[in-house]
């Protein structure tokens, strides 16, 4: 499901700018200012999405849209309180953010009392255990791999449906759950903010069809859900504000409509008429509309530019482009201003010089290459000279969308300046990642993007640059640089065993720098995602973890 996973929320460039432009000239500044309404209870929020969620099943969902929607329906062990200036990790189902053992291999969480499902029964530690366990079944696929990677016995466990339990999850009583891990995981309590670490009552588990029957312990429950058409959420009357530090229950219901064209959605919300006034979008604004809408002052109060913990980059295949000088020359040569232009301009994101983006634990500001984002051709040419002035021809893999093909052209133009000829290989967008992640298909340059699962370098660098994984997962290789640098690998192992967060983050910063020293990748932009809501939607929080407009405090202005 790469198309919609956290990895690649690529904003497709559709050929619709003309209509939006037409809308802008015809009704410039017509946006009615009904924003003076006051917060209150009641009303229905409409969510306009171009496509259905990959899953709502908490153990399967891996898209930001689905995860954000699940926050309304269910609760996780820990969660992010984003009402302040920085995201704060808090206990959600759990009373606090968990207790690690010395060495961080055993994590204990105590559950709140009185958290109730939609039928009034109480959420128990056994339900959380069962929920995590079911994610091991091959039927419950698509979700993140962390439980299987870390829990003792996880690599052999096949889920609870044949009656077996996973012994490394212990539930000494109704309100206590203990996880035994194979290795130290210092930020395990950040992993547990993901929906996989939520409760599923065995009696209401419908296996692979659970997507439409998720049993709610959050403020809203599923009233009806027709796949690819409409999801209707209504209040869960058993939910209690007193037990929930993150969510509110302001609106009466949420009506999610799927299937409209993304430009039509942008246009509708921009025009702010009828139900559009109480609507919001979860998919980001279409690339073609972005520059236009980002610059419209009349939309300012209902335009959300959300920095994502993500990076848009160009991987240089280190096994094919072996000469470090050539790779460094590429780092200097690429004109990031034209590259960003292809992706939608400044609204898309800031120029990147590191693989870790500023919101991520482990981020350290540094720039090894050109200070000017437009590049430094003199330096690049000098490096090429050092490399003996080869005139190589390189392939670049991009999605076959207009956006990415413009991007490829920008790269091609930059590299021609230093005598590198570039052949563009556009790959069908829906099969892009399954193609490039297969080690059978290697290119000299490969476009990629990555959003962290939680804002820590541990979900970015080890996944993208641990060269020892290439052989292990030949069909789902994430190391697009094919970097297998012993120095990087050693830092990965070192960070993994560290329990002190500050020390660990410092190690990740070092790792980031080492990767860029290897010139294995050209970081292009730290990504932003932009969404809009109607003028009567209030309480939208910028969720910088998911890069989604968070709905946990949403209300309708009256």
């Amino acid at each position: 499901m790469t198309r919609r996973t956290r990895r690649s929320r690529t904003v497709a460039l559709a050929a619709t700018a003309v209509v939006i432009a037409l809308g802008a000239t015809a009704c410039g500044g017509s946006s009615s200012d009904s924003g003076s309404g006051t917060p209150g209870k009641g009303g229905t929020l409409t969510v306009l999405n171009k496509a259905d969620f990959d899953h709502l099943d908490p153990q399967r969902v891996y898209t930001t849209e689905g995860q954000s929607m699940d926050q309304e329906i269910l609760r996780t062990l820990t969660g992010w309180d984003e009402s302040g200036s920085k995201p704060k990790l808090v206990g959600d189902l759990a009373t606090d953010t968990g207790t690690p053992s010395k060495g961080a291999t055993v994590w204990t969480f105590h559950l709140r009392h009185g958290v109730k499902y939609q039928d009034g029964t109480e959420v128990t530690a056994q339900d959380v255990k069962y929920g995590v366990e079911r994610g091991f079944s091959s039927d419950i696929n698509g979700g993140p791999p962390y439980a299987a990677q870390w829990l003792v016995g996880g690599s052999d466990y096949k889920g609870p449906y044949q009656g077996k339990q996973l012994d490394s999850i212990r539930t000494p009583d109704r309100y206590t759950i203990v996880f035994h891990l194979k290795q130290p995981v210092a930020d395990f309590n950040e992993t547990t903010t993901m929906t996989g670490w939520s409760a599923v009552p065995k009696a209401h588990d419908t296996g692979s069809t659970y997507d439409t029957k998720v049993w709610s312990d959050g403020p809203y429950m599923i009233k009806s859900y027709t796949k690819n058409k409409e999801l209707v959420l209504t209040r869960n009357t058993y939910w209690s504000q007193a037990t929930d530090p993150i969510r509110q229950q302001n609106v009466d219901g949420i009506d999610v409509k799927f299937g409209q064209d993304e430009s039509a959605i942008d246009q509708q919300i921009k025009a702010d008429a009828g139900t559009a006034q109480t609507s919001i979008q979860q998919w980001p604004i279409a690339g073609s509309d972005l520059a236009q809408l980002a610059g419209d002052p009349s939309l300012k109060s209902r335009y959300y530019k959300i920095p994502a913990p993500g990076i848009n980059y160009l991987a240089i295949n280190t096994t094919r482009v072996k000469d470090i000088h050539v790779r460094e020359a590429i780092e200097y040569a690429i004109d990031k201003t034209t590259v960003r232009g292809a992706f939608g301009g400044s609204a898309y994101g800031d120029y990147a010089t590191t693989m870790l983006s500023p919101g991520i634990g482990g981020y350290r500001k540094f720039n090894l290459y050109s200070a000017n984002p437009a590049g430094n051709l003199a330096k690049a040419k000098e490096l090429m000279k050092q490399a003996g002035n080869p005139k190589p021809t390189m392939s670049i893999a991009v999605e076959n969308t207009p956006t990415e093909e413009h991007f490829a052209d920008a790269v091609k133009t930059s590299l021609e300046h230093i005598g590198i000829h570039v052949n563009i290989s556009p790959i069908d967008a829906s099969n892009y990642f399954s193609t490039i992640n297969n080690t059978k298909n290697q290119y000299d340059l490969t476009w990629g993007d990555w959003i962290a699962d939680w804002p820590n370098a541990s979900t970015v660098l080890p996944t993208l640059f641990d060269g020892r994984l290439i052989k292990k997962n030949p069909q789902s290789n994430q190391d697009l640089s094919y970097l297998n640098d012993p120095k990087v690998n050693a830092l990965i192992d070192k960070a993994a065993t560290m329990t002190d967060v500050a020390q660990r983050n410092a190690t990740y910063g070092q790792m980031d720098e080492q990767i860029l020293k290897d010139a294995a990748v050209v970081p292009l932009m730290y990504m932003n995602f932009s969404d809009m809501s109607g003028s009567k939607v209030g309480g939208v929080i910028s969720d910088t973890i998911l890069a989604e407009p968070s709905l946990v405090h949403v209300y309708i202005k009256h």
Partner: protein
Amino acid sequence: MFRYLIRRLLAAAVIMLVITTITFFIFFALPSDPALLACGKTCSPSRLAEIKHSLGLDRSYLTQYWEFLKGLFAGRVFGDQSVRIHCGAPCLGVSFQTDTPVLTTLLSDFPADLSLGLGAAVAFLVLGVGLGTVAAVRRGRAADKAAVGVALFGVSVQIYFIGLLLLYLFVDKFQILPASGYTPITEDPAGWFQGLILPWTTLVIVYLAMYTRLTRSSMLEVFAEDYMRTARAKGLPAATVVLKHGLRAAITPIITIFGMDVGSLIGGSAVITESVFGINGIGKLAVDSVQNSDLPVILGTTLFAATFVVIANVVVDLVYGLVDPRVRLA
């Protein structure tokens, strides 16, 4: 007649078998792997193998194909772990993506396509034939040029453009219509109609051109026929001559094309219109299924669309027999 029908249906079954076979094997020739997609972004080979097994993709293509065909007639049961999904005959399989029997999804999407396709088809047939007739009668004069001009406009604009423009004008700017979309007619007939006005209009604008031109040229051909002179010589009023004697003969070639258009429209070919107006029909389902490598849905939507095109063909032949007494269905 009856024998003719049987023969046509048998031929249709063979065609559909061929289409299914081709679709099936093309799918496996594609680089995408549904198991890999389902597996997620960091997928270990062992997990991948398990998912392959649970999706039934670990068996040989021939076995899978045979299972699919068997399911069509005998039904199948899917899933062996978390849940058992019963898929009764004719079973088109169960979606990899939603774990829903494909036929259930198709049938729930079908009313939207039927409403969209039939409604638009009736409108563009009536308008196109009307405009074409006017153009033919007023050949070379202002009305002809206007009709041909309108038709030319329709054929040169893109659905995508015209759809978004209509949405912008009628929904966003002047707010004459509510947001478009599909409401079942059984729930709210007025809402059904309002939600479909713009999609219908879009399709009409795009299809009108062809029907206008076709009617015009067909009419002009008929006008030159001796029997049209006979009709006038009888003293029939001009309207009767044109509409009864002329249209009756001119409509035959139009029926063929109309049949194919209706068949493919309600079979889900109005993908872009569906997408622009947020109508979740079979066209969108088909496109999504290809993007998600959802083989059962790909097969299902292909078969479904093929069924309608084939049915449309048979219906066209039958209607031909009714319209033109010279055509004998023997």
